[in-house]
C-alpha cells in the first residue's frame, strides 16, 4: 500500500497519469454511490460513520505495545494520528464554501434584483471581494505597490490595504458587535434582576461578592481589613476566591460529571447511528 501511494515528482508524466486516474476514480466512486439503490443509503451512511470513529476508538482500546517495537509508545495505529488530522483538516476545509455560497448567493440575488436595502447587500459583496482579494495578495504579493507614491506621500502596498481592512475593518467591527452586549447587560441588570425568592437572593449575593472580588473596588472597600488572620476572610477578594474554589468548584464538577456521561452516551449513539430525529431519519 505504501508503494501504491508513493509520491511521484510532478515533472514526471506518470504523475499526471496518476492524478487523472485518481480524479476519474473519484468521480466513478460518486457515480457508483449515486447508482446505489435508495434502501442501501442509510446503511452506507451508518457504515461510514462507524468507520470514521473506528480509528480513534480502536487506537484507544488496543493495548499499548501491540504491533510496535518494544519501548515505542502506543500501538500500531498510533503513528497515523498526524495523517488522520491532515485528512480531517483538508476535507473539513472544503466545507467553507457552504456558508459562503449561501450568504453571497442570497445577497447577490437581492443586489441584482434591486430588492429592498439592495445597497447594503452590494456593500457586503464589495467588502467580501475586497477582503478576499487583499488577504490573498497580502500573502503572495504583500510588498507589491498598488498606489505609487505621490507628492511626498509614501506608496501604498497590498499589505497596507490589508492592514486597513483587517485591523481597521474586520477586527474593529467584530469587537464593536460584541461590545454592544455590555450596554444590554446594564439595562438587563436594572430591569430584569428581581429578587423574588431565596434562591434568587443567594444567586445575587454570590454574584455581587464574586463581582466585587474581581475588581479593585472590592479590594478598596475591604482594604481596611487585615490581609492575614481570621478577619482576612471577609475581604472581598478572599470571599470571592472561597466561593469560586469551595462552593462553585464542586457544583461545577457535579454538572461536569452529568455532562460527561451525556456526551459519552450521545457520542456512542452517533457512532453506532442509533440517533433518531429529523436529520437522522432522512432517506
Amino acid at each position, binding site marked *: 500500500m505504501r508503494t501504491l501511494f508513493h509520491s511521484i515528482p510532478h515533472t514526471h508524466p506518470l504523475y499526471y497519469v496518476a492524478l487523472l486516474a485518481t480524479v476519474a476514480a*473519484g468521480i466513478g466512486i460518486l457515480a457508483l454511490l449515486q447508482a446505489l439503490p435508495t434502501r442501501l443509503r442509510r446503511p452506507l451512511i451508518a457504515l461510514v*460513520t462507524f468507520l470514521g470513529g473506528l480509528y480513534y476508538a480502536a487506537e484507544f482500546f488496543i493495548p499499548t505495545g501491540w504491533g510496535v517495537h518494544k519501548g515505542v509508545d502506543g500501538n500500531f495505529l498510533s503513528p497515523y494520528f498526524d495523517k488522520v488530522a491532515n485528512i480531517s483538516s483538508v476535507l*473539513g476545509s472544503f466545507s467553507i464554501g457552504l456558508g459562503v455560497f449561501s450568504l453571497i448567493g442570497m445577497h447577490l440575488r437581492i443586489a441584482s434584483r434591486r430588492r429592498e436595502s439592495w445597497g447594503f447587500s452590494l456593500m457586503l459583496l464589495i467588502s467580501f471581494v475586497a477582503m478576499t482579494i487583499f488577504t490573498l495578495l497580502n500573502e503572495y504579493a504583500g510588498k507589491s505597490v498598488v498606489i505609487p507614491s505621490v507628492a511626498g506621500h509614501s506608496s501604498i502596498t497590498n499589505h497596507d490595504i490589508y492592514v486597513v481592512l483587517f*485591523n481597521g475593518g474586520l477586527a474593529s467591527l467584530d469587537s464593536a458587535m460584541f461590545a454592544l452586549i455590555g450596554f444590554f447587560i446594564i439595562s438587563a441588570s436594572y430591569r430584569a434582576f428581581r429578587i423574588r425568592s431565596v434562591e434568587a437572593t443567594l444567586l445575587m449575593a*454570590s454574584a455581587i*461578592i464574586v463581582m466585587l472580588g474581581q475588581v479593585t473596588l472590592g479590594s478598596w472597600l475591604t482594604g481596611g481589613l487585615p490581609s492575614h488572620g481570621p478577619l482576612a476572610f471577609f475581604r472581598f477578594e478572599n470571599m470571592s476566591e472561597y466561593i469560586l474554589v469551595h462552593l462553585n468548584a464542586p457544583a461545577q464538577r457535579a454538572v461536569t460529571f452529568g455532562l460527561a456521561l451525556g456526551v459519552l452516551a450521545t*457520542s456512542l449513539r452517533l457512532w453506532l447511528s442509533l440517533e433518531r430525529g429529523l436529520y437522522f431519519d432522512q432517506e
Partner: protein
Amino acid sequence: MSADYLHHLLLPKLLLGAIGTIAILSLVFRENKLYRLFEHVFLGLATGYGLATTWTQVLRPKWWDPMVGGGEWIWILAAPLGLMFYGVYTKKFAWMARLIFGLYFGLAAGTVFQGFAEEYVPQIRASFKPLIAHGAVTAAMAVNNWIFVIILICVLVYFFFAFEQNSAVIKRSASAGRVMLMIAFGAIFGSTIMIREALLIDRIRFLLIEWLQLGHIFR
C-alpha cells in the same frame, strides 16, 4: 489642532475603525442605516477573510503544496470527496452530504472516547478528599473538604433523573443541591458581566486613547 494630530486622526486604519465602532455602538440608541451598513460590511469582511485564510493557511500548505510540489497525487481524491458537502444544494445528491457529515460525526465521537478517561478519571480521583484532620490535613482543610464533598453529592443527587426522588433524604439533598447550584450560577453570572463590560471598555479605550489620543491631554 496640529498637522501631526490631524494626520493621526485621519490614518485610514484608525479612522475606519473609529467610524465603524461608533456606527455599531449607535444601535443602542436607535436602529439606523449607518449601523446596518457597517453590519453588512462586517459580514462581508468576515466571510472573505475566512475564505481566504482557509486557502492560505490550511488548503494550500496541507493539500495543494503536497499534491503539486510534493508529488503526493493521492491528495486529488480530497476534491471529489470535499465536493460531496455541496450535495446539500441539490435534492438528488443531498444524501451524499450526509455521508461526509457522518464521517465527521464518527471522528468526533472517536475523539470523545479518546479523551474521556484522561479528562474525567482525575476528576473522580480528586473528589475523594481527606475528611479527617490528620498529619498534613489541618482542621480548616478538613472542614472545607467536607463542604466540597457534601456540595458535590447534593448536586449529583439533584441531577439523578433515573429514579423517582421519593425519599426525604434524597429530596432534601436535591433541594440543597439546587441551592448550591444557585451560588455557582451567581459566580458564573458575576464572571459573565466582566467579559461583557471589558469588551465595551476596550472599544471606548480604542476611541479615546488610540484614536483621539485624549490620554495625552490629561497626563
